């Protein structure tokens, strides 16, 4: 992203041992660290207590790639785009398509457990990561998991660090499961009802059709316009597999209504991933998939009150995501998104059961305490944090779990 400067560390570390040395030094000096990946894509907007940057972008490149194993081991600072290029050359792919520019790193994708439309069929980072090397907040290096696709040896440190936002350890190397690229990869759009009340029955009707899409994403008219498509509610369907399978599903969709095809389907998905304006605020609501239409309607009502807000969602995962321009007045944003959360039944406090979940991806600083609850504050999570990062050195406060005495938080741009 243009508004985020590359970190200018004098000498970015290029090995796990160097990272470990820096973490140990920080531990001795009681200096909190802010882990910085590519420094371009993941403008997390999450508050981190005043911390010294620890650049991991120097850990870059392929460590081992045996295409026949459909696995790859890479340095965590490797950009997703580079991974896509290398695996494509072998007719394979890493099916992670998080929102944002593909110059973002694979380490950041795993550390934040970020997902995109492909998660519907390919799973999330926790389903893709086979093993990882990481430097814990103690300065110790762990080598967790392995390089094989099935592994239950020992307690699962891999899942623990995936999605931990760097607060337990700095991921330095990753082994990942790849997939063979399908023979065909076709994206079809279908015009969907603009009326939010009609979405539920419409999706139910589509759901009964013989379809097994790789991605199935609903976008509202503003999102469609941002992507350069017709400004109407659209369904994007990604069909993959052998030609017979893709063709049969294409015919099924064609019979279902107003359909348009994109041979260059990958570009549609790239433009969806990068549609949000710089430093946009972003919120994600989720619930059981049968409640998708309810979430969609609530989100569209919120969008009506926010100039330039755009909405999309994955019905099969029960997720709706909305972003609002950075210039949106915080009061308006807070009011609209609080109303949405109340309507869909988001829990009022962490640890309380709720019928739905709201996760903020990026917010103006002042809104974090208004729109989110601190995460990872339960007894077990705190115990694990204390066991892995006793000095609270790594991305402190990134879960909104600020120590009372901490200085004013600043915004992380990992």
């Amino acid at each position, binding site marked *: 992203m243009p508004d985020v400067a590359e970190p200018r560390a004098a000498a970015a570390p290029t090995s796990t041992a160097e990272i470990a040395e820096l973490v140990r030094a920080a531990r001795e000096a009681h200096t909190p660290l802010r882990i910085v990946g590519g420094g371009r894509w993941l403008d997390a907007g999450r508050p981190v207590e005043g911390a010294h940057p620890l650049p991991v972008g120097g850990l870059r490149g392929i460590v081992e790639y045996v295409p*026949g194993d459909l*696995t790859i081991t890479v340095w965590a600072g490797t950009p997703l785009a580079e991974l896509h290029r290398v695996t494509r050359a072998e*007719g394979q792919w890493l099916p992670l398509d998080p929102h944002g520019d593909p110059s973002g790193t694979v380490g950041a994708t795993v550390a934040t*457990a970020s997902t995109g439309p492909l998660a519907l069929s390919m799973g999330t980072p*926790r*389903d893709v990561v086979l093993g990882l090397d990481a430097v814990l907040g103690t300065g*110790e*290096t*762990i*080598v*967790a998991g*392995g*390089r*094989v*696709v*099935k*592994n*239950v*040896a*020992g*307690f*699962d*440190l891999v*899942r*623990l660090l*995936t*999605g931990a936002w760097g607060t*337990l350890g700095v991921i330095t190397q990753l082994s990942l499961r790849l*997939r*063979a690229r*399908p023979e065909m990869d076709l994206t079809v759009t279908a015009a969907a009802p603009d009326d939010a009340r009609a979405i539920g029955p419409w999706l139910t009707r589509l759901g009964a059709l*013989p*379809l097994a899409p790789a991605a199935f994403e609903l976008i509202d008219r503003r999102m469609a316009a941002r992507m350069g498509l017709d400004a109407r509610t659209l369904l994007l369907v990604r069909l993959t*597999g*052998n*030609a*017979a*399978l893709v063709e049969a*599903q294409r015919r099924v969709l064609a019979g279902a209504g107003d359909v348009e095809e994109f041979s260059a389907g990958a570009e549609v998905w790239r433009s969806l991933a990068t549609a949000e304006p710089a430093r946009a605020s972003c919120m994600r609501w*989720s619930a*059981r*998939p*049968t409640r998708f239409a309810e979430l969609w309607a609530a989100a569209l009502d919120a969008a009506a009150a926010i100039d330039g807000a755009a909405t999309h969602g994955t019905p099969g995962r*029960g*997720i709706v995501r909305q972003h609002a321009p950075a210039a949106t007045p915080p009061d308006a944003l807070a009011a609209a998104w609080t109303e949405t959360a109340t309507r869909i039944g988001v829990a009022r406090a962490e640890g309380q*059961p*709720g019928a*739905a*979940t709201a996760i903020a991806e990026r917010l103006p600083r002042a809104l974090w305490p208004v729109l989110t609850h601190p995460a*990872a504050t339960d*007894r*077990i*999570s705190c*115990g*694990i*944090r*204390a*066991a*892995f990062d006793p000095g609270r050195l790594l991305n402190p406060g990134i*879960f909104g779990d600020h120590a009372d005495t901490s200085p004013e938080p600043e915004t992380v741009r990992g």
Partner: protein
Amino acid sequence: MTTPAVLARKAEPRALSSADADVLARDLADIVGDRHVRRAPSALLAYESDGLPGYRRRPLMVVSPGTRDELQAVVRRLAASRIAYVPRGAGTGLSGGSLADGAVLIGLNRLTAILELDPANGLARVEPGLVNAALTRACEPHGLHYAPDPSSQTVCTIGGNVAENAGGPHCLKYGVTLNHVVAVTVLLPDGTLTTLGNADGESEGYDLLGAFIGSEGCFGTASDITVRLTPNPPAVRTMLADFHSVYDAATAVSAIIAAGILPAALEMMDAATIHAVEASVYAAGYPVDAAAILLIEVDGLEAGLDVDVATITRLCTTAGARAVRVAADVAERVRLWQGRKKAFGAMGRIAPHLVVQDAVVPRTKLPAILAEIAEIGERHGVRICNVFHAGDGNLHPNIPYDATDADEAARVEHAMGEVMHACMRAGGTITGEHGVGLDKLAYMPELFTADTLDAMCRLRGVFDPERRSNPGKVVPVHSCREWQMAPAVWRGRAAASGRTDA
């Protein structure tokens, strides 16, 4: 952040006098009823081993709660006296993971309720003692099934599956238990309940659910489990390919995976296994003169499935298959699978005992590792039967033998050790789905660095600071620094009481 109290307490296993045991048994009987506390040696016999022969450990007593409230009361009572316990499902585990050496064994088999079935969202919330196949039967009317399908699925429990992160043939396409559990309510060893994961949307914070699944009962006991149900595939093709050589079959496996086809299952059986199956009541019609067979299943929408069948047939033939046939009907399909799923049982006919192994190698290493395993078997004069999830590189080299023959038992042990080391050298791991339990403890320091093992110890210590839940499993106690730093007197006592827990 201050160190939470749960970490500050030091583990202190407690040896129980016979009088204390009487009191405990009475207290537990007050909770669950007299019939459900067993102490007689004859009653304990059935609980001395699990699905893996070769280990016998006698529990102090067996208590079987009939409700989740009773389960919680039992665990609270044990916590009050700091008594070690082992949760157990059906006892079909293959790593000695549910054996209780002088500890209280908590049988979960009476907790079999389906608490909530939400077919529209493909979710079910169940009690831990529910049998895997019973869940699939219950959601059959809705066109759904529970995808992880370990061979023991007709008896093994969902709780046990969660503890072991169980796999099965169809995990190649559908994923292992981890990929199918969305939330678990965990009864921690201190008797408190906590919910991990979220059935109503995404989760934020640490993936504690991911950490819990596969923790082999060392982090606590799943009190209820919400799993994802999978729509039954509209179309299925089950194929049988037979080969002159194991090498050719392994080559075909690599070719299929590399071609971009993701079969629902891709299983291999070698000649020794084929003979065992065909000589048993589970005879499936496998060709007895084949060196190896592949059982291959593709499923999904009807469209395109026959194209995949044709591609797989071509790849198998190119790799040297003598014949490739497609099951003509459901009955043949069931028969082909029956032989695979009952293969371990069929081996039981060959000899009184059976070592069941579980290791994983990178898929391209399959041909080489199978050759090496055959060589190891020959050199030690033991008969290794291979039946395994070839598509995942997940090997099960099994050895039928007579454990009362000391010489043979020693040869089997040496051969197995060499097989495991060969798999590790090939870049693999020591278990793909059976767990570490007791059986694989010794390999852990070879597979993981000291810092990694210590991190595992610390993780366990957060869930179970007193290390009372399934002590002595998964991570060898000597790799836990906290234990190393503990007073020598305590270490001695722990060793003496056999409670060398991790």
